């Protein structure tokens, strides 16, 4: 019976790995109840064991892990000291810290756990590989002739990130995440819309999709809704009587009319953004952009260890920028949660 139990555990773990891989393909988080239904069946008690074994398989075979998404209760008027203590203490199970402790959502995403140095090397163009892939690309008449289905040109990176699904949406998402971050980790709907309008994006503007999308009609509002559904963004009503949430001083600043009774929509990062993208990397993204713009491409070509080859002045500017972003966000940029 023991043997059978082991075999069963192994089978379920393999099924969970498959489920994780295929669900990730759809860009949706994997919910615990789906796991229970599709993998565990009646034996939900052993979930912990099955998950642990599945994690081993994912890690050993693909260099990936399932990560449970965390929610963070809405940040109220902050006591900065308490906040700093919070951030330093990353242990979410620490007792006594009720308000700020992130809670599990019973939703999981897949994440690469390869060494960051390795990932960096894997995303940088390699001349050799590029030559080979570009050669094949150019030789394929169907790829080139059809403008209807533009296929991205190879970059020659080991991980072909240029083939990512809907890169346009990812780019837009990261811009929105950046806005939210530097605005203090939350931004009112009005403010966000104003900023997006500067980029010529209004509610009904078509967001470009690559040919793989079967639904071509895709407005900004649909993009935002999808981002919420996928867990990248979070939108809340702030200021309702029934809610326990206090209004944020900053957020209500731009509201016309009566602040005290105003109900505003606020955008924050969703749990998936915290786990998959991370505040630090978005901060670096913003810093890169700002530095490049300011320096006017003096230090262009941010290759492999970009920052390492910078001249000291640029590095100083970048460091200053990062500090500023951290301050604007409200301190202590989080790593991947």
């Amino acid at each position, binding site marked *: 019976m023991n043997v059978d139990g082991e075999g069963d555990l192994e089978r379920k773990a393999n099924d969970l790995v498959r489920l994780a891989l295929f669900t990730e*393909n*759809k860009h949706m988080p994997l919910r615990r109840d789906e796991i229970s239904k599709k993998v565990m069946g009646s034996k939900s008690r052993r979930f912990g064991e099955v998950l642990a074994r599945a994690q081993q398989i994912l890690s*050993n075979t*693909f260099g990936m892990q399932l990560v449970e998404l965390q929610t963070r209760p809405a940040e109220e008027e902050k006591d900065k000291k308490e906040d700093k203590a919070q951030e330093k203490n990353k242990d979410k199970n620490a007792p006594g810290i009720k308000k700020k402790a992130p809670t599990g959502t019973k939703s999981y995403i897949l994440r690469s756990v390869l060494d960051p140095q390795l990932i960096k*090397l894997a995303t940088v163009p390699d001349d050799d590989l590029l030559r080979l892939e570009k050669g*094949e690309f150019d030789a394929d008449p169907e790829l080139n002739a*059809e403008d209807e289905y533009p296929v991205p040109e190879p970059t020659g990176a080991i991980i*072909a990130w240029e083939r990512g699904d809907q890169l346009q949406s990812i780019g837009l998402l990261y811009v929105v995440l950046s806005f939210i971050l530097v605005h203090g980790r939350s931004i009112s709907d009005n403010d966000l819309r104003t900023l997006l309008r500067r980029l010529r994006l209004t509610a009904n503007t078509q967001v470009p999709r690559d*040919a793989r999308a*079967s639904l071509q009609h895709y407005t900004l509002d649909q993009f935002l809704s999808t981002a919420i559904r996928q867990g990248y963004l979070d939108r809340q009503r702030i200021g309702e009587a029934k809610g326990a949430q206090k209004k944020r001083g900053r957020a209500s600043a731009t509201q016309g009319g009566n602040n005290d009774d105003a109900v505003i929509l606020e955008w924050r990062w969703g749990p998936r953004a915290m786990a998959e993208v991370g505040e630090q990397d978005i901060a670096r993204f913003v810093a890169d952009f700002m530095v490049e713009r300011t320096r006017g491409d003096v230090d262009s070509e941010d290759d492999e260890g970009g920052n390492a080859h910078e001249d000291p002045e640029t590095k100083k500017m970048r460091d200053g920028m990062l500090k500023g972003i951290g301050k604007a966000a409200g301190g202590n940029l989080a790593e991947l949660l």
Partner: protein
Amino acid sequence: MVSSNDVQKLFLQAVASRRILSKQVAAKIWYKCVEAVQAVDETLEIEYRENKWDEWVNRLNAALEPLAIEFAHVFDEATGKDMYALVNRKSDEIAQLASDYTAGEIMYFRAILEQIMLAPNESYCVSSLAALREVNHVQTTMTKSQAQHVLGSFVARGWLLKSPKGRYSLSTRTILELQPYLRSTYPDEVLECTICFEMVTSGYACFTPACKLRLHNHCYKNHRRMRSDCPTCKVEWGEDDSKLLRVGEQAFKDGQEKGRRVRSVEADEDGDGEEDEEQSQSQSREPSEPSQSQTKVKKEKTTKGKGKGKKKVAESDEDEEMEEDGETPPPRTQGKRKARS
């Protein structure tokens, strides 16, 4: 921190990011993964031999096998290149999630697959018009213009190919990943290459009436280098290619899509390829099924197919040579069919 096992992990991530890739590119990526891991930790000793590719693939597949995933390969019918991809080998409920498509879109895809597999003259392709018309036969609210986008998406994701003449056919990836499904769903329509035994949807056939030879383009080329006669019936082909029959889009005949082929599920003895009838009408092509004489008899017995049982192809084409009384109306598509008496 890296270990030598990271080569495998990075390699699989790299392959996954490409969906399908040539053996050359895959082998190069393997080398680059070794290089990258080595760069992070120079003290690691990593085994790498360029000519040990097959062993590398076997090692990967040993790890993937319990997950019912395979790093499999097949030759691209158009280019003759050896292509690799990670494919799912178990069509369970879990795998059905793997799609970005809605249920209606998946049904539409299956319908297109069917039209391709059932296409007359072993052409294994369907025109744009016919593909769009399929929307009417699928239970979905998709409009024709939506279907246009969906078809574009199928092509962009590499499930279908669209030829310069606008005809859709099976991509290498689809053949690689769905071959078990196609073989079990369309056993009478799946052709095998006589030389390599892999499924063939584009290539050559011998012009001898009874000869069952079918070859991939690349298998044909290889054979031709050494011999000029048919490997099966030994007839001399001579120098001229043009007498040979074709499999795939080049076998497409104008007007072959006048009717619509349906896989009707009948309670009948055996499902023979009734498409052979049409083939014999249009170009006296030797049917791929042996018992052609039986098919006519069967036609009379054919009922309006809603039963279970073996699959049968119902013809709904207008055709002089069909002497039986009336044809079988295809089960699902009452709308546009022209009634024949």
